[in-house]
């Protein structure tokens, strides 16, 4: 916070004075909004807090995560915490990762006109159009590589004039690529076997059977890692 300096922003058209130098999410909470949805990790990883804003005097819309972007004087903003994009169902192990599999499940990728609007909407600076183009030619590895930093906020799909669901296409491609082309991680396989063999069943059963007071007491006395422990 900038020494008590205030700045004026517009949340859904209404003016608010909020402390300068805080995030959009903090500013909205300062203004009285309470997030029950549309906020998750507050660290830029979960993609729940997609925000659309326009700076004063600019014609262009900009896109960000509310928990990451700082407020600026004259910013007009609203939240887009959810994208009503349909997601197809598939059983990964039953799919053949053949070249047109993405087109089969998401045929609208063929409607891409290469306008690049998706890329301009991405708060993660991913080359979204490039990975849709790779999807169109069945290059799963390239889609997986280019879309790796996607956090599924869905802003690309909200902006696309061709109604493509980019982030779902990319997720499917990463899954297919992971199953078909990545080496099996030995430590993960071993860990899954441990869990299947009941490595933590007793502890989980204990929690499931505990009454509310017992759970509260357990929570209050939980071990919290301090910053110095984390650094060591």
């Amino acid at each position, binding site marked *: 916070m900038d020494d008590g300096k205030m700045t004026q922003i517009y949340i859904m058209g209404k003016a608010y004075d909020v402390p300068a130098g805080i995030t959009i999410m903090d500013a909205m909470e300062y203004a009285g909004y309470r997030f029950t949805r549309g906020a998750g990790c507050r660290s830029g990883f979960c993609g729940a807090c997609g925000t659309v804003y326009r700076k004063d005097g600019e014609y262009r819309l900009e896109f960000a995560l509310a928990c990451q972007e700082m407020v600026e004087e004259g910013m007009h903003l609203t939240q887009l915490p959810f994208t009503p994009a349909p997601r197809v169902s598939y059983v990964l192990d039953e799919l053949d990762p053949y*070249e047109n599999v993405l087109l089969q499940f998401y045929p609208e990728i063929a409607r891409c006109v290469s306008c690049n609007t998706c890329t301009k909407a991405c708060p993660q600076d991913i080359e979204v159009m490039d990975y849709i183009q790779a999807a169109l*030619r069945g290059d799963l590895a390239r889609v997986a590589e280019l879309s790796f930093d996607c956090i599924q906020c869905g802003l690309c799909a909200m902006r696309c004039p061709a109604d493509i669901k980019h982030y779902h296409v990319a997720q499917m491609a990463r899954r297919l690529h992971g199953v078909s082309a990545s080496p099996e991680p030995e430590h993960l396989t071993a860990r899954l076997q441990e869990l299947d063999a009941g490595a933590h069943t007793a502890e989980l059963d204990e929690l499931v059977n505990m009454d509310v007071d017992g759970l509260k007491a357990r929570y209050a006395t939980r071990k919290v890692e301090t910053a110095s422990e984390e650094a060591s």
Partner: protein
Amino acid sequence: MNGIPYFPGCSLKDTASEFENSAFFVMEKLGLPLIELERWNCCGTVYSLTADDLMHHIASVRNFIRTREMGADELVALCSMCYNTLARVARRVDSDGEARDKINAFMDREIDYDGGIKVRHLLDVLRDRIGWERIADAATRPLDGLNVACYYGCTLVRPKDVSVDDSENPTVMADAFDAVGASVVEFPFATECCGTYQVVDRPDLSLERSYRVLRSAARAGADVVATACPLCQHNLERALDKLGEHDGIENLAIAYFTEPLAAALGMESDKLPEGLRSVLESRVTVEGDA
């Protein structure tokens, strides 16, 4: 640049990879390798005829910008549909500065496209940059005895202003096969339509048209129908598959024109598709054979 900038298009990276592989082989042998454009995107698939529909030209223009970024001023396509779309957009934005300015303004994150990219098809590169004599000299396994029907379809030769050759009576593909020793058969359906993407909504219409092309080629005595388009290839193969027992079309092989050319230039036969391989084995007399 030791080579020529090459635009693959989506089909050549999945269902039509044999088209690309054989073209790579041919151009390596001829000393003008194809250099794939970096970060290319779909050509736009179909040229939009609506006068103010500039949105559908953006895809092609981005590819011209990628070509400029390579420091080149020409771009070669293999798929005749991609060729057609790219060539028509190139003409449009070259001749219409206002349209070009609007597209540049919309794209904003790209360098401006200033026009001037020459879009070529591999066939005109073979004719104008390589020449039939050099191709004849490079043919280590001439296709003597092979009868080829050159199927141009629509998009290589129409409309006239982007045609790779005379749009009524094209000979460029035939000249390529002449150069490598094959016999070219004349057939009246060489520039008829295969039914194109009507195969999706009206599959019977497409089937009938493709079947007529095959029947005409078979009656003219063809062993191979050579194509330059993944969609033509798909429709003709579908007709062969569904109606193969009719009118003697069952012995036809359908191949991208680059595949028999690659065979003539020495590509190993196990890299050729089965249909073409068996036709070559039964028809072509190889020197040294008993």
